[in-house]
């Protein structure tokens, strides 16, 4: 049962070969068995899941179904869920029980999904390893061959990706501000798409950097991601940056093939010191697409190397502003103080972890009087140049193919000595957020230690269909059948 993809489970549910209660019960059992090892969930909601499952069975019995009726999912603990604690993996939100439902999760519930619980993440989605969660690290279900070293699942959507890879969720919601869907998907051997900025509503998603944040799905196949995104996406008047654009049939696009498409290879993504296996996999991916009828075209994105430095001005600046709301007054935790200012300072000192504080401090500094032009305004101009690079490239090609991350999953505690070393993980993913484009990571191969590696497909704004078509072609050619050592079976 755990080897069924979301699309296959959906077909079995509709054919009444499997009930939603059976499927949900099996997944809840797997969560109970494996979550103590993985820590992929912060909160589990078994009773709620069974209520959702019984409602799904009742509709299926009437011959009715939505896009996801009876499908058990993990929800990143950054999406507000009505009546279910939503922590953003921060101490400061540990007591928070939202009285409302985010638009994305409301869309999933409308379509009949079953919620198993809230997935772990880096605190406020700030991190690339899931090591910054106030609720503990997440362990990647994959191990290096012959080694028991616990590896990171990537971040920030590390719990979502680990849960899907270990088969303790059939799919999951995630969010991506600088790579937080695609890098953990690559590290855990699954697929994940960050759609175009504006495709999914941000309403009810705990804000990190509002001009970069986008919700998207992670799942075991490209088609499963397409099904989930079709449900999550759509115009929402409650988000002023939500795009009023029709949601196409993403799943249908997976079968299109790549014949006649022009695929760009950005030369600036060939980095010194990149693992040779990753370069080899990239070349293999291009060969697969060429064999399937695509034309490969060299392109240049000259400002790629400045993407990360730009990101580490823009994202902390927006975060320092967004996180100003955690003041110990309206919701979340409060630490006492003799006066109002001391109460604020104690609340925020006790409630935020080290990485969140670092980013708030950087953001406060780059926005402060006298430094705004030198840092923030400069970064916004470089951001415009990054977008221009992509716009010019997309005059010549239909999509770009790159590696997702410069390495496979690393050990828990590695790359922690210096914040910049950790930031470099997102070098291939950050420019996509800066330009607001869709990006999909597809598992395409293994490194010498047997760990999964991903390839990234980048598309034009609101052209997720081409991205899915290319991603599905890579997936078919790669025939990725490797499985993590920790996973539910049966």
């Amino acid at each position, binding site marked *: 049962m755990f080897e069924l993809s979301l699309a296959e489970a959906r077909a079995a549910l509709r054919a009444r070969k499997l009930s939603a209660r059976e499927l949900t019960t099996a997944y809840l059992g797997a969560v109970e068995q494996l979550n103590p090892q993985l820590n992929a969930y912060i909160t589990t909601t078994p009773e709620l899941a069974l209520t959702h499952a019984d409602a799904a069975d009742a509709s299926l019995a009437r011959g009715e179904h939505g896009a996801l009726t009876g499908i058990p999912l993990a929800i990143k603990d950054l999406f507000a869920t009505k009546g279910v604690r939503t922590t953003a993996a921060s101490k400061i939100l540990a007591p*928070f*029980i*939202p*009285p*409302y439902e985010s638009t994305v999760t409301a869309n999933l519930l409308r379509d009949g999904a079953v919620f198993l619980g809230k997935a772990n993440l880096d605190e406020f989605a700030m991190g690339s390893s899931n090591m910054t969660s106030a609720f503990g690290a997440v362990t990647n279900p994959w191990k290096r061959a012959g080694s028991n070293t616990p590896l990171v699942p990537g971040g920030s959507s590390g719990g979502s990706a680990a849960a899907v890879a270990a088969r303790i969720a059939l799919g999951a919601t995630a969010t991506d501000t600088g790579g937080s869907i695609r890098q953990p998907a690559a590290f855990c051997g699954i697929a994940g798409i960050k759609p175009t*900025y*504006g495709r999914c509503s941000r309403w009810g998603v705990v804000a990190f950097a*509002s*001009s970069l944040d*986008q919700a998207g799905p992670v799942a075991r196949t490209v088609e499963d991601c397409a099904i989930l995104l079709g449900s999550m996406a759509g115009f929402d008047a409650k988000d*002023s*940056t939500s*795009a*009023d654009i029709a949601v196409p049939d993403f799943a249908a696009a997976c079968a299109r093939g790549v014949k006649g498409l022009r695929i760009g290879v950005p030369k600036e993504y060939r980095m010194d010191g990149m693992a040779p296996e990753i370069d080899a996999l990239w070349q293999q991916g291009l060969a697969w697409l060429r064999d399937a009828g695509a034309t490969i075209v060299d392109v240049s994105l000259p400002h790629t190397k*400045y993407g990360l*430095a*730009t990101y*580490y*001005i823009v994202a902390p600046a927006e975060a320092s502003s967004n996180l*100003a709301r955690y*003041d110990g*007054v*309206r*919701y*979340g*935790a*409060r630490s*006492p103080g*003799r*006066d*109002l*200012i*001391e*109460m604020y*300072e*104690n609340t*925020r000192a006790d409630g*935020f972890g080290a990485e969140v*504080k*670092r980013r*708030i*401090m*950087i953001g*406060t*500094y780059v926005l*402060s009087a006298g430094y705004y032009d030198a840092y923030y305004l*400069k*970064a*916004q*101009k*470089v*951001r*415009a140049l990054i*977008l221009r690079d992509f716009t010019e490239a997309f005059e010549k090609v239909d999509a770009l193919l790159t590696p997702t991350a410069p390495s496979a999953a690393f050990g828990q505690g590695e790359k922690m000595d*210096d*914040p*910049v070393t950790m930031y470099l993980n997102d070098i291939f993913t950050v420019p996509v*957020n800066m330009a*607001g484009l869709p990006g999909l990571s597809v598992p395409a191969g293994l490194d010498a230690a047997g760990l999964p590696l991903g390839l990234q497909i980048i598309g034009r*704004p609101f052209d997720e269909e081409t991205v899915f078509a290319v991603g599905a072609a890579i997936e078919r050619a790669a025939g990725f059948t490797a499985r993590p050592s920790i996973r539910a079976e049966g």
Partner: protein
Amino acid sequence: MSLDPAAIRRIARLARIRVDDAQVQQMQGELNTILGWIDQLNEVDVTGIEPLTGGATMAMRLREDAVTVPDLTEAVLSNAPDRDGPFYTVPKVVE
């Protein structure tokens, strides 16, 4: 440019985060590493480039300035760390 301990304290004060001496020292090292790395942007010529402010190139939508939700006082206050009837409470501001 490099931040000294006084600058770290000033930023922490602006950000409303209490810091002790050990944290000031640690943050000084970390923040200066990050800012030193960010300084690579000085190489980029941005003459005549308009800043890109948002994630989307489309214009912001305007809406009618009208009340769109019913009275949600109880829901809004349900997560308050401390309250008094329909009010949030904070430590005394005026002596």
